[in-house]
Every structure is written in C-alpha cells, then in structure tokens.
C-alpha cells in the first residue's frame, strides 16, 4: 500500500505512518435481536377496539387473546388501556379467538384508527411508519396478519410504482445462510484497503446539531453491530464516537465544521459532500435555536447564530480541483477510502464519471426526495431529479464508459424499506444510504418540525438536553439493530425468491422489475 501511495504522490516523507491502523481500541457491539418496546405509553395502532357499557368485565377477551391485547390486571376491577399496537385486526376473524365475536355481551367493536389519516404522508405512509416501528421493536418483518401495506408508499411514482417479477418458484432453493448480502466498497485496485460491509446499506450523514448525540451514537453502534458504517454529517466528530471509528464515515462538507486532520485520520472512509438531495444547490442549514453551546463548541461557531454552509466548495471549480481535494485526504489518511456525495442534476452521469476519474472510490448519488434536518420548502422536490432516474442513467453511463466495476455506486434520497433497497440495486446501484428510516425506528413520526426551535419534539433531531434525554442509548441502538435485522431478513427473502446467492447478482437486473404504469413488453438486461 505504501508503495502505491508513494507512486501516486511522490511525497513519501509526508505520508503519516500512524493512519495505517485505527488509533484507539474499538468497541464491539453484538448483532443480537432483542425486544425494544415502544417508548411511548400509547403506541399508535392500526385498529382500535372500543369497549361499550355492555361489558360485564368477565375477562373473556383477555383470556382468549393470544396477543394479550386486553389487560385486566389482577386485583383490578376495570380493564387497563389495551395494547392495541399488537392487535392483528380483522385478520383475527379467521381464528377462534377473535375477541369481538367471543365477547358474550357483544361489547367490543373494532374500527380502523382514524388517526392514521393524520399520520404520515405520500412518501412515508402511516402503515409504513407503523411497520418500521414494528420491525424496530421485534427485529422481524411484520407478520402478514397485521395487514400493513408497507412495501411501497403512496407517492404514485418511482419506487412506489416498481414491482419485482418474482418467478413462481425459485430457480434454485437456497437456505438463508447461503445468501450473501455483503458488498465491497473499494473497486479501484489502488492499493488502498478493501472494505466490505455486511449489508448493502450504511447510515446517512446527520450532524451533531441536526440530531442528538444519542441518535448519532445509536446509529454508530448499530453500524458497528452490522459491520457497516454511519456518517457524521458536517457537524464535527464527537469524542464519544471514537470507540466506533472503524464504522464511521467522516464528512467534509462545504462548511468544514469540525473538520481537522485528526478527525480525518480516525476513519476508514471520508466523504466529500458536494451537495445533498433534499436541498440541491444549497449548503447545509442549521437554524439559530439549534446552535446550542455544545453544538457551537463542536463547530467552533457562535452560540445561537444560524449556520448556512456555503454552496458549493469554493475551492472546487473543476474535476481537477475535485481531484485536489481527494488527494489532500489521501495524503492525510493512508487507509481511507473516498466517497463523493453529489445530488442529481441533469448531467449527473458526467458528474459521476468525473468523480471516478478524480479518484473517488464511492460515488454517492443523493436524490431529490431525501430527508434533512432543515431545508427551504422551495428546494424540496423542485430542484434536481428523483433518485430512480439518476441510478439508471449513471449505472448505464458508467457501464458504457467501461468503468462500472471500478467504482462503487451508492444511492440515497428516499430509500425507506428493504424493498426500496432491492429496487435501487436492481436499477443499477451497488448499495444505498439510509437516514429517515433509522429516525423512524427511534420514534420519529415525520412531523417535519426538526428544523428550528428546540428541534424535534420526540427527542431525536434535537440537541435540547431535556428532549434528547427521552431517548436512551441502549434502546436506540437496539431499535436500529432490530430494524437492520428485519431488513436483512426481507432482503434475503427477495434474493431467495430469485435464487440468488449474493446481492451483487441483483445489480442492474432491470429485467426483474416491472413498472405498473408501463406495458412491460421490453426485453432488457
């Protein structure tokens, strides 16, 4: 490796020897699914069961329900609030323990929860949120009995209109443990270390400031458990993250907040953020109220003053300038792989091939429908294209240029479920970056209030000590581990149905997809 670097740079004496290995001892986190129940007293459920005055308090409902939805505590005369979030709803009708029918006084009625109409949005439907919560709680894909429609959202386009064409029977029968979901991130054969992640996704950049330190650490610990990565975002690198350095991507964004040689030397991947899908053409926004003393200290800025990162890097006006950036990092950290995060303009394929030629290992495309802590509404949806178009365009262009297998293509911006992940890979990506889904696992309800004031009222995207205190690190870690675990199971199930031994076999297999709005009569491969 040293030789290749000397050859590249010609400056052997400048190469820091101490960056070959991780600087501090690393902490292991077990990849074990454990129940992580919701942290709110009243978890929102798909169905409500109403108890009328006819109830004789006989307790029959509590006796028959195997889910233990009805709670009649010993010594109490009245029922406690039911655990409606574990009720499987009308699908229970086919069993002999359907409480509505079993009640001798017909005192129970079941209705769909009207609050679902208030929750969620076109991209993240209420049922998708509920299903993500369920996965984060149990580590398993939600049982079909719950009836959640969560594989697609209601946006009416892109991933939500794509479906897999599964064969009636898998071409070969494979056990779960025969299926490999790992991907490699270094395809350049440039003497830098290979980095393999066990699942084809890693966590997106969310800065300290946009989210709490508990949120950041939960993401980092879950990434460690799954031998993948999470990203610091552009708000600096907390000392508490050091034990997880091997699974952290540090971001160099236009604001350069908290970027120091020392932080760059800690990690195995450094990401240059040129743009982000949620506000393409604009720099990061952290509004004044969220610049708390801790955030200001980390970013070396002034308390209570809004931080708008510039756009773009004013040191980069060409691909050659971009290469200069990458070379800078390569010389500071001898083992680091480099990722270039860009969004999806009209000429995204030129940007991608330019980044490759400048020496990046990972081209990270961030599509227009991603989440973010704060963005002007006019920038959301109106600037740059959705990721579904960009993946196909870039994948095919890199293939035509003969460099597709020399660069890792990672995409983000609206990846919500394992089905989205599989579709993104089938369209041509190697892997994806996820962000909002992790926050949903921690209890985010997508109320869109993360941008200002004390930040997130649910304690996730905030640096307010009181609010952030409502999420515990162990719980947060477990919720994300559980989510990842459920996702991996779903992804394995998809690969199993196609008889694929590795997720890399799925890459670019658009022939396995169909679009609900098209005739689907084109033979492609």
């Amino acid at each position, binding site marked *: 490796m040293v030789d290749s670097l000397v050859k590249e740079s010609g400056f052997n004496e400048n190469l820091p020897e101490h960056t070959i290995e991780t600087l501090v001892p690393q902490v292991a986190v077990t990849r074990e699914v454990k129940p992580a129940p919701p942290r*709110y*007293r*009243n978890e*929102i459920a798909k169905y409500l069961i109403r108890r009328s005055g006819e109830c004789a308090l006989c307790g029959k409902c509590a006796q028959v329900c195997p889910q233990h939805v009805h709670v009649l505590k010993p010594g109490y005369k009245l029922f406690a*609030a039911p655990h409606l979030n574990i009720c499987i709803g009308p699908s229970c009708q086919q069993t002999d323990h359907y409480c509505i029918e079993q009640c001798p006084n017909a005192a129970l009625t079941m209705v769909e929860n*009207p*609050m679902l109409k208030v*929750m969620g*949005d*076109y*991209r*993240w439907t209420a049922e998708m949120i509920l299903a993500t919560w369920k996965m984060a709680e149990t580590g398993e894909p939600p049982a079909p009995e719950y009836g959640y429609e969560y594989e697609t959202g209601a946006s009416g386009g892109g991933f939500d209109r794509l479906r897999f064409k599964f064969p009636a029977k898998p071409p070969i029968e494979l056990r779960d443990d025969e299926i490999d979901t790992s991907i490699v991130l270094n395809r350049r054969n440039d003497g830098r270390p290979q980095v393999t992640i066990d699942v084809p996704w890693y966590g997106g950049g969310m800065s300290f400031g946009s989210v709490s330190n508990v949120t950041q650490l939960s993401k980092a610990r879950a990434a460690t458990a799954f031998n993948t990565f999470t990203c610091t975002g552009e708000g600096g690198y907390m000392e508490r993250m050091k034990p997880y350095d091997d699974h952290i991507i540090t971001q160099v964004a236009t604001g350069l907040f908290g970027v120091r040689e020392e932080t760059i030397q800690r990690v195995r991947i450094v990401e240059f953020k*040129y743009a982000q899908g949620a506000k393409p*053409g*604009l720099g990061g*926004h952290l509004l004044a109220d969220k610049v708390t003393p801790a955030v200001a200290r980390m970013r070396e800025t002034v308390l209570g003053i809004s931080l708008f990162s*510039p*756009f*773009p*890097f004013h040191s980069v006006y*060409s691909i050659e300038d971009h290469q200069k950036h990458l070379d800078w990092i390569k010389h500071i950290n001898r083992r680091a792989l480099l990722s270039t995060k860009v*969004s999806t*303009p*009209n000429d*995204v394929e030129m*940007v991608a091939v*330019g980044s490759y030629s400048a020496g990046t290992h990972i081209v990270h495309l961030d599509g227009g*429908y*991603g*989440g*973010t802590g704060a*963005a*002007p*509404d*006019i920038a*959301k*949806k*109106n*600037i*740059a*294209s*959705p990721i*579904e*178009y960009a993946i196909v*365009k870039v994948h095919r262009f890199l293939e035509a240029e003969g460099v597709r297998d020399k660069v890792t293509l990672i995409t983000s911006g609206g990846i919500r479920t394992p089905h989205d992940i599989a579709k993104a890979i089938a369209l041509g990506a190697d892997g994806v970056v996820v962000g*909002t889904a992790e926050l949903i696992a921690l209890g985010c309800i*997508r*109320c*869109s*209030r993360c941008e200002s004031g*004390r930040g997130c*009222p649910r304690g996730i995207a905030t640096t307010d000590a009181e*609010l952030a205190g409502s999420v515990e690190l162990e719980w947060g870690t477990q919720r994300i581990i559980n989510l990842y675990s459920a996702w991996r199971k779903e992804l394995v199930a998809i690969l199993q149905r196609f008889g694929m031994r590795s997720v890399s076999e799925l890459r670019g297999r*658009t022939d396995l997809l169909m*679009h609900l*709005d*098209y*005739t*689907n009569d*084109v033979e492609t491969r």
Partner: protein
Amino acid sequence: MPTKYHIDTKKVAPRLPKIGKFGVVDWREDCARCHNCVKKACVYDRYRQEMQFIHDLDEFNAMFFECMGCFSCVQKCTKGLLALTINPQFERMGNGYYTPDIILTTWNQAETAGIPVSGAGYRGPFSGPGFDAMWTDMSEIVRPTRDGIHGREYISTSVDIGRKPRYLAFDQRTLTTKLPPLVDLPTPILVDMLPAPYHFPNLVPMMLAATVNTGTMMILPWEQQALLGPEQDKHLGNIIFYLGQNTPLPPAAMLKQLRLIEIAESDRTAQRIQELKASNPNLVVAVRVELDATGEERVITLAQHPSTEVIHIVSDINGNQLGVEQPKFIKDMTRHIHTSLVKSGVRDEITLIASGGIALAEHMAKEIICGADAIAINMPLLISLECRFCPSCRDGFPCPAKIEGITPEYGIGRMTNLIAVWHDQLIEMMGAMGIREARRLRGETGRALFFDDLEEETFGRLFGKRIRV
C-alpha cells in the same frame, strides 16, 4: 457602487386565528386530572396559548388550531384520551388548485417575509400535474457558472419589459439603431388586477403602495383609476392602466406620464397601439391575450407583428386554458408559445408576461423557465391578506376574512412581504441552479427536467410504453 435592490419587510401579525392543519380531540369524561398533564408539557406550549387566546377573545370565533402534529401528547396521555385529527376547517379551504397547504404557507410568508423552511425532507407525491411535473436543474461541481448561496447578492432578478431590437447597427462608432422604450423592473413579478368576483375597492391603493415598496408595477382597469386615491400622481410609474376593447383612451396628458399600458387584444390591436404611441412614443404597450381555445395561436401570430412589444398571456386563476373541455395548463401553453416564437426568430424581440395558476414562488421560477419573461399575480396577494379562498365574496356574501376592513399598514405590509419572499425564493432557486440573471432563466428548459421526458428516457426504455397518464 449602484444601490442593491432590496425590499424592506417587517413582521405583520395575522388579524384572525390561523386555521391550522391539525387539531387535538380529547375525551374528557375519562380524564384522570393528572397534575402533570401532558398538555402542560407541550413542546410548543400550544395548549397554554390556546387557553390564553380563548380567554382574551372578545367575540365568538372559530376554533384555534396551531397544533404542530407531533403526537407527543397523544402518545403520552396516561389514559390515552387524546387523538389527533385533521382540522376540517383547514381541509375546506381553497379549491382543487389552491390547496390548504398553499394557503397556509402563503399566510405564513406574508406574516414573516421569511422563506419557509422545514425538516424531514419532502412529503408529497412523486410528481403531479402542472408545475409539479417538472424539476429545475441544479449547479454541480463541474459547472463553472454557478454563483451559489453566497453569491446571491450578485444575482440579478431584473427584467426588461418592451420590444428589443434584433441586433444593434453601428455606423462607424455611432449606434444607428433606434432603441425602443423599455421598462426595467427589479423583479419579474407584476401585480395583476383582481378578477371581478374578487374585487375589493379598498385594496387598490394598498396594492399600489406594495408595488411602490417593491419597485414593481400593478395593472388596473382605467375605469377604476379613481380607486387609486390621492397618491396616484406620485406613482404613475408603478401603474399599468388596462384598457378594455371599447375603453376610450386616457387623456394624452395622462398617457405622457405613463411607462407601460395594457390593452385588450382586439381586431384593432395594431391601430390602438399606434394611437397610444402617437400620444407618447416612449410608452410601452402590452397586449392582454386570454388563452382560450385559439389563444396560443393568436399570440404566436400577434408576436410577428412589428408593432407588438409585450404580450400578456392570461389563463384562468387555476392556470387552465379558458373555455375548453380539456384545458391545457399555463406552463405547457407558455412553452408552446415560447418555442414557436424561438422557431420563428422573434422571441428575443417580444416580452411575454404570464398570469394564472402561479400560486407559489416555485411556480414563478418554473413559468419563467418555460418561457415567460415575467409573471403577474393577483390571487396569492389576496390570500396573503388571510383570504381562505372561500366562495363568499364571489357569491355576494360578506367576506369571512373581513378584507373590506383591513388597515393599510396591514394590507401593504402583508403584500410587500409576500412579494419580497417570492423574490428571495427566486434567488434561492437561481442560486441553486447556478444562474446569475432572471433574464437568462427565461426559456432555459435545458436547465429543467420534465417528468414526461425523464420517464420516457429512463423507464420507457426499460418497460415499454407508458399507459397511465
């Protein structure tokens, strides 16, 4: 150094309780009267504010809904008594085009003059009809023309209204081309006259003051000149009188003081232009053309006439073609007109102003990309005054938003704020696109992405013919 274009704004509080999106319903019969009730812990302190509001109320009024929809109280209540619901009053606002969300964001922008910012990314559909079927391009690392957010003070939004010469001719070093009159606007936003059903006479002087504050111009029927009030003589440079087909010409003394005038399209268009020019050769004349079934083709023909300087194309308030069963949308009609004028080689000589269906700042930028030089708005200004877009005034009933009774300070402030924040958002978008001038944004469809094109290029190749339109 020349003075930078800047609009002074200040917060103008609403007069009426806001009609928010969410409301909390509680079932008090079973309340345990907890001393640490979750309502007291509302992060936004909304319950306390609502109590105070009701306490201070001096008349009966509608519900007060400013719940932020975080579900915290709903999920924390010890007895599970609270439920969140969409405010039915919110859902009833607007029409199919001016959605409740558009109305609410317009109110907020008119109040604060701040660019709306929110978290958690985009929540809406993948694409949609009208302006939602396109995205603007952005500047990326390889584009040398970008200015970025920190170059925004160098982004010009000014546009020239009038006829421009195709080329400049020189004799030796002397310019021999006779330069036609041009009206320079600092922002591509004009104020259009309100449609007859939404006419509020008291708004006219306030609209004039808002155009003076923002340096732009307002269109007003000549017959309503008296409504302008005593200040009109000072601000004739901000007024565009509109002359209907049969409206007599204003006195020559008045015409001499005007910069721009608008006439209705008619069989006598060229003659009317000539008559106006005879009184004031420096007067720029715009022709207002309604985009009905033959509107686009009439505009294309009109643009070929050497006397035509400015064409103001007008759709209905929702951006639809007038009087046809399956109307085209303003963006598509503008694109067709613009492309046709480019093909016939006259596009750069003519100024196009577009009206109708421009409900948000993003629509303005997209309409300009589709080919308009400037836009003219009316309904967003009315909404900025807390109009709920209900049919009351249209149907002859009293306005529930009491727009007849607003104070000038309130009306001028809110409309000025709205124009200012639209201007800021235009800059935001142009900064993101790496475009330095609004004049260069016009017709730049190469810096936009259209849903139909992207679908065809991407999914059409993979999946065949699109069957759902």
